């Protein structure tokens, strides 16, 4: 058994866990933002498809509405990239 109270944290260990936590944070940022975007686009996408099926001229506008929540995942991606690389 390792006695946790007497375990020594070396500088390398701290650095490694920092890098690891950064990676976890980056993954969470993209993943959770992706889920949010997906939830947002779910309803819009279905309605947009319906509208386009009824009137093809709606396509441009429908596309516009569908991609609006995409910004969220882009923010997640930017945060992840900044976490990893800056």
């Amino acid at each position, binding site marked *: 058994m390792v006695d946790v109270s007497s375990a020594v944290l070396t500088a390398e260990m701290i650095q490694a866990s920092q890098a690891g936590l950064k990676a976890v944070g980056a993954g969470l940022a993209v993943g959770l933002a992706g889920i949010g975007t997906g939830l947002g686009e779910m309803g819009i996408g279905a309605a947009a498809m319906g509208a386009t099926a009824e009137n093809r001229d709606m396509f*441009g506008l429908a*596309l516009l509405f569908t991609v609006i929540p995409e910004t969220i995942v882009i923010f997640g991606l930017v945060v992840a*990239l900044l976490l990893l690389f800056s």
Partner: protein
Amino acid sequence: MLEPRTMSRLLIAGTKAEMGGVIAELYRRRLFHIEDFIGQEEYAGFRLGMPLAGATEASNELLKIRAATNAFGIHADGAPAPRRLSVTELRRSLQTELPEVDAQADELVTRRTRLETRQKDLESRIAELEPFASVPIPMDLYRGYDSLAVFAGHIPADVAITAPHEKQYSGGKKGGFLVVFTPIPDRDAVERQLLDAGFAAARIPDETGMPADVIARYQAEQASAEKELEGIGRQLAGLSELHASFLLAADELLSAEVEQAEAPLRFAVTDQTFVAEGWIPTADLADIRASLERITGGKIHVEELPVDFDHDAVPVEYNNPRFAHPSELLVDLMSRPRYGELDPTLLVSIVFPLFFGIILGDVGYGLVLLALSFGLRRYLMGEAGNQLLDTLRNSSVAAIIFGLIYSEFFGVELPWKPLIFSRHLGIGAAAEAGAHGPDAAAMLIVSIWIGILHITLGRVLSIVNHARMDHGSHRTKAILAQTGWLAFMWGILIVIWSMYAIPLMLDLSKLGDVVAPIGLRPAGIIGIVMILYGMVAIGQENTLDLFELPTVISHVLSYARLLAVGLSSVAIALVTNYIALDLIVRPQLAALSPVGVVLVIVGILVLLIGHVVNLALGLLGSGLNSLRLHYVEFFTKFYKGGGRKYNPFGMKRLYTSEE
């Protein structure tokens, strides 16, 4: 440039004797956008015109042509014919060839329909007979009894019947097929027992002979019908090849004739005269007037009417230099500009490929897409297809240029260092060599700068739009609101700059000392004043717009996708290269073995699939995100759209020529 073509409203009046000639000339020139006569007040005493003579005949012939075209399965692909048929030649062959072609098509289609019906009939007969094939009784013996009742049908399992009977059971995986013969007096008892056992009666087909023989006979007939159908299909295909050019040309000629003959239905007429109203590009006005006068020998009245831009729905035709023409597709996808509104096509044609290039930025992918934009031309015909491919061509050239700048070729570094920013992520060997990651922060700031400038441009265009299209106090308010949006955005920026020193941006954080009671530097105070002015200016036009204020920030930050989407694409390319080359191929090449050869092939496959998927994602990601930045972030600032498409009377001839 930057605005649609100027239009004039034209009124053409003349005697009915001249109507045919005028219509033919207008049709040939393809410039006159007819405004339908709908019984307007100022036309009291006029009525709708009647079609010209010959409209019915032409329609009937057109119907025949279309029937034959359908029968032969000919599709117009929108590409001009290699050799166009002359109209005189075509008219002659319409007399001689059309009845024959029509009869051939008719005969073949009738035969095909008959055979197909027979096929379906045979199929259902075979399906009915199939269960009986397992019972060795000729079909004649199932009927014609006075004292016997017959049951035939499906049953889950064999059943023991207590009443006097004779039965045949054949089992199968999904239950069996049962045939029971029983004297009429016992019929009810047998039926009850059968139903209790889950019996489902089947129809007894009206056939003679052993069921297996009948099925075999039907199947033989089916096969011969199949063969005959194939023959008809071949004949139709042969005829289609033979007559396609004739039929398409005839369709075009007759459609043109019908359209011209029916044009009077859109005119206002009296017993002796006709009046046509419509739109024409102002530049062509004098020309059309002259040619109409020449055609009619001066017996025509052509007048330019005053235009009420607020109430008349002026049709809108783009007026762009040639290189901007493909982007009209992207603007039309959103909505055509209104008349008098700024037409953003030119800006889109420059900025869209630029954004695409910034995002994709890879020489390899750019080259593949460039090749695709030329290779697909054979399959994507028509104007929209060409516009799409031209846009793709321009975008891939931009991607190649940015690829050279970023020094990327399928994710691999080219022999030079990236000229501005590195997007190479330290993965695999590079990470071991201690390479530093991409310049994410710097690129992020540049992306934001692009966003700030793009949005500022949008707001400035909006001011121009409002100044040109609105009137009175509404115009002043709208322009003020736009300056408010600008002041709000730049005010926030100045406040941020006055507090933090951000690389590649203005540093106002050293300017002056913090003013104690407010806690801001002088620049920050200017920023706050701008923000407050902005809110007032926006609120005076529409208070509800104040709820939109946060979009200023989200729209600017949205341009971060220029960096983010691009970097994710680079990451996929790098990971593909790392897995395929570094992990699979290279270790095997070091010491080649038979298994190693297989692994090398697998590695190459992984490489190919990875890059194809990434290319598809990159094309979609770069294209859609670039488009989205235009639609959502840029157009919403100034563009309303909703203009009426200019649709001139006439036809672009693809298959026929006048001579």
